[in-house]
């Protein structure tokens, strides 16, 4: 075995044992049945997947897609101008990129908790507003979809900004001058040059936000209370309190498949090739 293959061996073994094998187990569990005391046993069945088509669970799926989609849209809306600004910042661009990334590298749990601190009934926002006599009773800012959206957007904004910035860097100012030189007014330049050239970064950023938002667990758990149940919460619930591992596995599989398919289509698309 060549040296290089030997180098790859530890990683291959680890990924096989602790990434591939677990996935295989989950895959097989999704086709099995829940035992009396919460175990997993035969017979083999597709019951779990059929159950997922139940309106209750479909609504959870739908809600996950909806929240992930909305988060993505908000990240794109907020992130695009920011990425544009950074790409034009010359020498300071690395500083700004660091600033964008920095919150990301602090603890996710702490960041989510911070929103709890700010938004709850006795939290900062309500306390300040009541002190200023703007409101009389605390506003319900937490434990709803809005709070979850806020947490997700805040957390995943860098995931959009970075690929968007990488693409915008390629938007040479000479291209804009060339467009104007050839007769394009500012709006036409935006439509015919800026948008098409920045599209790949836009798509990549969107996918990189959508996938983790779809599978979010901690944010809806802490900020959504019991009311915002997304797929991630469903999976966690089935593997702990409800002790229905086969059903939980089926839900995991759906989540996993959706993520993998989205990523694969992104990697394959011409846009990914343009980014690398």
């Amino acid at each position, binding site marked *: 075995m*060549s*040296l*290089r*293959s030997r*180098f*790859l061996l*530890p*990683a*291959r073994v*680890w*990924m096989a044992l*602790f*990434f591939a094998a*677990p996935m295989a*187990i*989950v895959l097989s569990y999704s086709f099995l049945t829940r035992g009396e005391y919460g175990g997993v046993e035969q017979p083999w069945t597709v019951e779990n997947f059929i159950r997922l088509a139940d309106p209750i669970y479909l609504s959870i799926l739908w809600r996950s897609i909806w929240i992930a989609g909305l988060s993505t849209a908000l990240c794109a809306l907020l992130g695009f*101008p*920011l990425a*544009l600004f*950074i790409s*034009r910042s010359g020498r300071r661009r690395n500083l*700004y990129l*660091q*600033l*964008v990334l*920095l*919150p990301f*590298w*602090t*603890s996710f*749990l*702490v*960041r989510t*908790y*911070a*929103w*709890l*601190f*700010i938004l*709850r009934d006795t939290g*900062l926002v309500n306390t300040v507003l009541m*002190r200023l006599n703007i409101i009389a009773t605390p506003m319900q800012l937490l434990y709803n979809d809005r709070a979850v959206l806020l947490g997700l957007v*805040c957390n995943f*904004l860098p995931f959009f900004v970075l690929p968007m910035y990488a693409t915008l860097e390629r938007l040479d100012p000479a291209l804009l001058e060339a467009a104007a030189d050839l007769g394009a007014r500012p709006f036409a330049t935006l439509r015919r040059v800026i948008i098409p050239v920045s599209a790949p970064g836009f798509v990549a950023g969107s996918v990189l936000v959508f996938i*983790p938002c779809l*599978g*979010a*667990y*901690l944010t809806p758990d*802490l900020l959504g209370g019991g009311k915002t149940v997304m797929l*991630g919460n469903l*999976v*966690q619930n089935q*593997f702990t309190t409800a002790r229905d*591992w086969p059903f939980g596995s089926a839900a*995991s599989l759906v989540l*996993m498949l959706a*993520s*993998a398919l989205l*990523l694969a289509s992104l990697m394959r698309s011409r846009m990914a090739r343009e980014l690398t």
Partner: protein
Amino acid sequence: MKRKALGIYSAFVLAFLHAPLLILIVFSFNSSRFTVWEGFSFRWYRAAMNDPQLADGLMNSLIIAVVAALLSTLIGTLAAYGIWRQRSVILSGSLYLSLVTPEIVTGVSLLALFQWSFRFLHMRLGLHTVVISHIAFSIAYVAIVISARLRNYDRSLEEAAMDLGASEWHAFSRVTLPSLAPAIAAAGLLALVVSFDDYVITSLVAGVDSETLPMVIYAMARRGVSPVVNAVSALIVVAFGAIILLSQRLQEK
């Protein structure tokens, strides 16, 4: 688009991103337990230092993070180098996939693996299962950092070494490895932070006796906002921030 308007807008967004943490840090020095500022105080920090649960959690987290970081850095560095010299679609694909997989899915799948294997192995969930899980998801992060460094690395350096008589191993260990050293350190620090901060996967595969710091914080946060959590959070933010900044400095070398 006017530059100034863009600049003001960006300042707002950046402030929005950083505000929650800054507010948390400021209020961790609040002497009152309510969200009304009553004066500067270290009392919550003192309370945090004296809390036995927090201390245990911290110890567990540190042990896990250090062990996991060391091993994942080793494995990940070798993997990144191996891929750089000889493409492996399956390995790079699975590393990518492990990054993209939702944490909850990784967590439950590892839980399923462990419980299944415990039928034969007579073990239980504990620190070791947490370490194994952390290594599994950290390898990808390490590989990314090292791969990024290798992308700018001149292949012909190793070829020159071999031309001068060095074996493949020596070409790696005497030429490439020293050059990779800062990146390896950076990746290690990253793995440390990623492991230390993990809640979702850890909560699923940790045993009863191996509560980590995030798990303790989560439980406290669930019970309601406690100023002690504010203090701990502030400490974590500062510690992580410092480590990550150091990591990035190393990567720029």
